[in-house]
């Protein structure tokens, strides 16, 4: 497969990748902690979602930069709002799928399968409200 993962990863073999680390904050009304992960299936690369808005696409400047046929420059975003995660498709005409279904905007649950163009990820988060 010619598709590849790019961006801020530090190598494969399951190593956790901190794409955009939340700074030490949050205890007194600062930005919240965000813990979620995307695991690229097949390559076993792990990408940490640590921001309330996590952008994905082929263009540099996204939090997660993906190279692959069918991945648009500004493909989709994952938002953390009110203790839950939602994926927002950016008019890709069905190239963003959750559990094999095309989505426009949909809440993500722990262990959902997310397809971004030809690349498949499993999504992992704490099952309930993410902010303690």
């Amino acid at each position, binding site marked *: 497969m010619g598709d590849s993962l790019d961006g801020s990863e530090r190598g494969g073999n399951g190593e*956790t990748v*901190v794409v955009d680390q939340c700074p030490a904050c949050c205890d007194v009304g600062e930005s919240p*902690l965000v*813990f979620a992960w995307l695991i690229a299936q097949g390559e076993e690369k792990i990408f940490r979602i640590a921001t309330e808005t996590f952008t994905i696409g082929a263009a540099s400047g996204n939090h997660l930069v993906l190279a692959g046929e069918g991945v648009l420059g500004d493909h989709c975003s994952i938002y953390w709002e009110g203790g839950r995660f939602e994926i927002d498709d950016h008019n890709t005409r069905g190239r963003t799928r959750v559990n094999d279904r095309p989505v426009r905007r949909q809440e993500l649950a722990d262990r959902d399968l997310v397809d971004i163009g030809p690349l498949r990820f499993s999504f992992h988060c704490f*099952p309930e409200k993410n902010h303690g």
Partner: protein
Amino acid sequence: MADRAARGPFDRTVLEDITAFRQARSPVLGWLTVWSGAQRGADFPLRAGRNFVGSQRECQVCLSDPQVPDFWLSIRIGQAGWTLIDLDSDGGFLHNDRPAFRGGLEDGDWIRAGELLLRVKMRA
């Protein structure tokens, strides 16, 4: 033994522990996340076998908090499930707000000691 006396100093090298090497190659089965303390926001991958939590660099979960013992906890992941074991502390830890020195772990469990608050995330 005669041949032992003939050995040089480098002949005494012993491969003591290859589990760490083996473990580094195994898949990530979950994460230990840091919710308060100096490394707030960090996450550490957890793999099959023993995952040491402490302030030593050799620990799979290396915490920079000065109050954390060198080897504080072990998170053992095996066929029987996930187990959390206190290795070196006077008071143990709070496991989901209950004092403990050892216990089984579930997805989303909280571990607290002093100002340090950790949470376990299981991948599957």
